[in-house]
């Protein structure tokens, strides 16, 4: 949505506006015929243009000489990268670029999204990518803005999500509170950063940043832009050609290795596929299903991406690993063999070692594999599938069918056990998490829906009730342990879903929202439709449990463990918080019978293109 036009004292109406001037100037440069057609000589026309330009300079509407500012060119570069949005927290250093985006760039591709905190800008970009498969920009003040945003950058790094971070900096003024090396703050968890020193250097820097960001493993990058470059006028002689951006083809495993892996899988008695992020795109989801069905093998999915359908009979829990003789870890670099049956062969295909840093411990334990391939899992799957197909004989198919039937039986028993557990507290007040998941599912199951909160929302009950089949059905998780990711990421994912007409459903924890409640305002301002149902258990419940455990070990009372952990007294009224930021909202709801009617009312609002929130007060877990 375009920002409302802000009139400044200098933007007073006159019979000579900049737009008219530029139109005329353009005609003067490129359309001498037009000037001739007007009946005036070229000299006379140029004289008039010069008079007009001088008048514009006198009125402060234009700087003298040159045709356009460097920030206009920067917008051209961002357009060439097809950045559809830049999430933005307004700040002084990037004002020239801000103005170019909203005026020169017509605030379209990229469209500026107003964010009230830099962390919202980054996490929104993170969530957007999970649905759209393309990055967004996030623009902020280089020093204090990036400090605010840094946790969001860390989560994107951990989750292998691309975010194009743009930092406005100002090195020409020592009292400006900028930084010599602004990206240093996040260098341990970004793939690339650069601070171009000339306008000519800006273009290749911007393209390279994008290219590195979008080469698997994906990750956030920083482009620090000095305000001086934004304001610098483009000289006529400057070569600012924008080169072609050619995406890198991700590395696949070598064919010989693929053939070895295929043989091991085909010959195994009980192969298991484990994954965190095998499905980098929707194609990866299809490949995973193909491979699993060819082998009729167990799939253990850590749901960091939509890797495998939740209700597929081959979808198994971790207990399947106790039977495995061969485990293929596909983009699961933190899987370790101590969770599998002793003696099982472990094959790992992951891009993790192709790009990484060591300071922040995101990489887990060392993975002792029998075969380790540094390659992109999704890019390798097609050749692996073909090699498996070549090796599977009809005898093997018969054996696989028996194996698959047993796995389907185990999957069904798992579902039945969950079903029994879902009944506990069904009618309780506050609401059980199973009840909320079931009631929401009842309302959305016949629609084109997308869960934009973490894939294990509501204590994992969504994995039982929601039928996750399509790539956009969930957006994985934060990648890190950060709280305050989910609310703005949901916003970004819902933004991406909007143009496809999908229903975005956000099952929002209270603790997470209170880190970053201003994300609600951006949803309202930009008319991003989404249904938010609070998982409001009024506390940091895991922390209470941990504190009780410590007190008990010390043989001390646990009656004080609510101190510093409960979010109560007063209980936050999330309906009022959301209403205050322009949402339709109801609650707090503590009677489970009230939930379904409230959901229906909220969905009617969402269908009109507005966000709606239901504050559901819940059991602790």
């Amino acid at each position, binding site marked *: 949505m375009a920002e409302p036009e802000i009139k400044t004292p200098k933007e007073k109406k006159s019979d000579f506006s900049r737009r008219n001037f530029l139109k005329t100037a353009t005609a003067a440069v490129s359309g001498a015929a037009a000037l001739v057609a007007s009946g005036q000589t070229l000299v006379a026309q140029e004289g008039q243009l010069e008079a007009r330009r001088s008048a514009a300079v006198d009125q402060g509407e234009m700087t003298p000489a040159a045709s356009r500012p460097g920030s206009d060119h920067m917008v051209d570069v961002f357009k060439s990268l097809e950045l559809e949005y830049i999430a933005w927290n307004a700040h002084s250093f990037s004002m020239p670029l801000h103005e170019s985006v909203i005026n020169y760039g017509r605030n379209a591709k990229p469209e500026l999204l107003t964010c009230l905190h830099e962390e919202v800008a980054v996490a929104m970009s993170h969530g957007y990518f999970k649905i759209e498969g393309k990055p967004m920009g996030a623009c902020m003040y280089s020093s204090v803005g990036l400090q605010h945003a840094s946790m969001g950058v860390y989560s994107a790094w951990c989750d292998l999500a691309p975010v194009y971070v743009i930092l406005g900096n100002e090195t020409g003024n020592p009292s400006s509170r900028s930084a010599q090396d602004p990206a240093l703050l996040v260098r341990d968890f970004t793939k690339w950063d650069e601070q171009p020193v000339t306008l000519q250097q800006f273009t290749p820097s911007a393209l390279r940043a994008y290219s590195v960001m979008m080469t698997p493993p994906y990750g956030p990058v920083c482009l620090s832009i000095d305000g001086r470059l934004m304001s610098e006028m483009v000289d006529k002689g400057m070569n600012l050609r924008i080169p072609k951006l050619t995406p890198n083809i991700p590395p696949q495993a070598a064919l010989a290795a693929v053939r070895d892996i295929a043989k091991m899988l085909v010959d195994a008695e009980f192969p298991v596929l484990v994954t965190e992020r095998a499905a980098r795109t929707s194609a990866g989801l299809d490949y995973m299903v193909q491979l699993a069905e060819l082998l009729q093998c167990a799939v253990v999915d850590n749901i960091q991406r939509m890797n495998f359908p939740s209700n597929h009979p081959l979808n198994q829990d971790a207990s399947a690993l*106790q039977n495995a003789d061969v485990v293929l870890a596909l983009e699961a670099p933190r899987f370790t063999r101590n969770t599998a049956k002793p003696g099982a062969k472990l094959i790992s295909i992951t891009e993790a070692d192709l790009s990484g840093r060591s300071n922040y411990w995101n990489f887990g334990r060392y993975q002792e594999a029998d075969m380790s391939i540094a390659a992109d899992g999704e890019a390798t799957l097609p050749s692996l599938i073909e090699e498996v197909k070549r090796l599977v004989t009809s005898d093997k198919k018969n054996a696989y069918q028996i194996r698959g039937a047993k796995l389907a039986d185990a999957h069904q028993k798992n579902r039945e056990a969950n079903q*029994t557990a879902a*009944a506990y507290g069904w009618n309780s007040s506050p609401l059980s998490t199973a009840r909320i998941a079931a009631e929401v599912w009842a309302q959305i199951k016949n629609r084109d829906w997308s869960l934009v909160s973490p894939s294990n929302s509501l204590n994992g009950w969504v994995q039982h009730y929601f039928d996750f089949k399509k790539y956009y059905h969930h957006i994985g998780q934060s990648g890190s342990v950060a709280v305050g990711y989910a609310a703005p990421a949901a916003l970004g994912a819902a933004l991406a879903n909007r143009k496809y007409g999908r229903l975005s459903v956000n099952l929002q924890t209270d603790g997470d929202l209170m880190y970053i409640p201003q994300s609600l305002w951006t949803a309202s301002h930009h008319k991003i439709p989404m249904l938010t149902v609070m998982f409001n258990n009024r506390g940091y419940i895991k922390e209470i449990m941990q504190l009780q455990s410590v007190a008990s070990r010390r043989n001390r009372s646990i009656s004080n463990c609510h101190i510093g952990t409960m979010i109560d007294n007063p209980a936050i009224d999330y309906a009022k918080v959301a209403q205050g930021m322009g949402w339709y909202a109801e609650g707090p709801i503590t009677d489970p019978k009230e939930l379904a009617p409230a959901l229906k009312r909220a969905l009617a609002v969402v269908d009109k293109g507005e966000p709606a929130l239901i504050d559901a007060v819940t059991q*602790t877990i």
Partner: protein
Amino acid sequence: MNCGSKQVFSLGFVRAPMAATVAALMFAAMTLYAQQPAGAAASTAPAGNAEKGKIAFKDHGCFTCHGFSGDGGISPYPAQAGFRAPRPTVTGAHLAGMPLTFQAFLNYVRKPGGRMPAFGETNISTSDLADIYAFLKSQPPSPDPKTTPVLNGQ
């Protein structure tokens, strides 16, 4: 802190399929552990007050793992499970309806199995436990999944 995060379901290839529900398995585990301490005299269950027990259940923090009504904390896919957790995973056992005797319940709280921390007399008095016991016993049974369409995902 988990109140018994044992694997409650296993694949039928290696072990015999378990027909018991999650709740029955947990109660079996609790009963197994709820043995009287060697040499201790059997204690008579004091009369409990369910209303007081509801307050005590909350005040002593039992609700954090077991839910406000003792319905338990069971997750089909818990957070941060990684590749370790079987499903479903129990954070707090389902206690509503409480089929254990008071003595077994008392013994378990004083000396639990699994990952539940122990609560001695100084943490939770026997009198409070009697009230909590009465509260848990008073909780209504859960609905039958077969007769509740929304519960069944229909």
